[in-house]
């Protein structure tokens, strides 16, 4: 594809077009990823996640600017929610990153979740691959504002930064399972606000309870809109990357994610295959009726369906 060559030479418009293809066109997307897959795997992929309004976009903006001081090429994918009713979306993360728009070494793309619930869009991982092939040294994925269990970002990033803010609840929140388990680095933003020290202390206490003695995630207090302590956060992100590399964990982590992605692709295709085989001839509806009437159970029918494919 002509667009791929242009993108590999650093053409932003081509890069943007390719991201649209992975968002919109499944068949073309497949062809495209097949061609560029070998160029991926070079960038350090950083996930920034946390509740709505925690300051993820502002933090991303400040962090990207810091990376630009060292001339790194930076890609940003900012995900915002799509309406489950209309399919429309307001993608507003760019508001905090406007002065990065003109930097030739920065590429920012907003994505709607389009029905995906894990904090990312379905096409986010493929968009990351395009930015990786495009030549980004760092790719920052900003998730939608998350609640307690949107943890897809661990499948896509090398380093996960969990952004918290003061005032979101007591210390029991910090020992719950889910989102609090995925941070490789914790950032307390808006640390000029009352209660920030307490929030940091609660996270620290949670981390000290952990049985994992290999590495304890650091907690950094920042005030993103005043550009305070962003350098410290950047250092900790870099330190985490070095830790992964030195202990052979980067390879391990990426392999785990690659395997997961492969299995997801197989699962999706298998499901399509079953639907194709059973929907048009009414078989799927017949099976539904059988189950409704309790003539058999779903596991038996599953096995029967799978054996027809084999």
């Amino acid at each position, binding site marked *: 594809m002509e667009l791929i060559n242009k993108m590999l030479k650093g053409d*932003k*418009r081509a*890069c*943007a*077009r390719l*991201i*649209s293809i992975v968002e*919109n*066109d*499944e068949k073309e997307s497949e062809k495209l990823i097949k061609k560029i897959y070998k160029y991926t795997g070079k960038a350090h992929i950083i996930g920034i996640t946390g509740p709505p309004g925690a300051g993820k976009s502002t933090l991303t903006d400040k962090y990207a600017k810091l990376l630009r001081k060292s001339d790194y090429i930076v890609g940003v994918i900012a995900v915002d929610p*799509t*309406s489950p009713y*209309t*399919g*429309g*979306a*307001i*993608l*507003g993360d*760019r*508001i905090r990153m*406007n*002065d990065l*728009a*003109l930097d030739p070494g920065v*590429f*920012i*793309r*907003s994505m*709607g979740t*389009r029905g995906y619930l894990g904090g990312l869009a379905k096409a986010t991982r493929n968009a990351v691959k395009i930015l990786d092939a495009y030549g980004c040294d760092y790719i920052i994925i900003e998730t939608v504002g998350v609640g307690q269990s949107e943890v897809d970002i661990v499948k896509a990033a090398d380093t996960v930064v969990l952004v918290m803010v003061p005032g979101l609840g007591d210390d029991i929140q910090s020992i719950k399972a889910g989102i609090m388990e995925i941070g490789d680095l914790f950032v307390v933003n808006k640390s000029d606000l009352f209660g920030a020290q307490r929030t940091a202390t609660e996270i620290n206490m949670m981390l000290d309870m952990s049985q994992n003695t290999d590495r304890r995630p650091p907690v950094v207090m920042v005030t993103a809109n005043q550009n305070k302590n962003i350098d410290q956060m950047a250092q900790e992100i870099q330190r985490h990357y070095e830790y992964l590399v030195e202990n052979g964990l980067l390879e391990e982590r990426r392999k785990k994610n690659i395997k997961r992605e492969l299995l997801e692709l197989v699962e999706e295709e298998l499901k399509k295959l079953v639907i194709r085989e059973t929907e048009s001839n009414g078989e799927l509806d017949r099976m539904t009726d059988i189950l409704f009437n309790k003539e058999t159970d779903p596991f038996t029918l599953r096995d029967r369906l799978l054996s027809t494919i084999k």
Partner: protein
Amino acid sequence: MDKPIRVLVAKPGLDGHDRGAKMIARALRDAGMEVIYTGLRQTPEQIVAAAIQEDVDIIGMSILSGAHNHLFPKVIGLLKDQDAEDIMVIAGGVIPEDDIPALKEAGVAAIFTPGALTTEIVQFIRDNIKR
């Protein structure tokens, strides 16, 4: 697969009144479009750079300061410089009748002044974007 229309909504120039732009952004969202909202005080250069990175079908700009005769043609010129004139440009705000013909001549596809219905704008976008 469904391919939503992507729209960049921006406010070029110096006036700080973005209620109109937000109204439009919300109406387009409710019409099933993906709206990239970039906020206040955008330069034409920023708007065009964002439009290209976001691969939008259309740019919608709102101006209430009176600088429309300068800023709208500037955006269109920059799009041409970057071979991106396929991105449609529409505009809204307080724009005197007398200025409209020249702006259309410069390449603004449509201009919606106070009183325009959001349904009208949605319909115009659906009917006119190049796909």
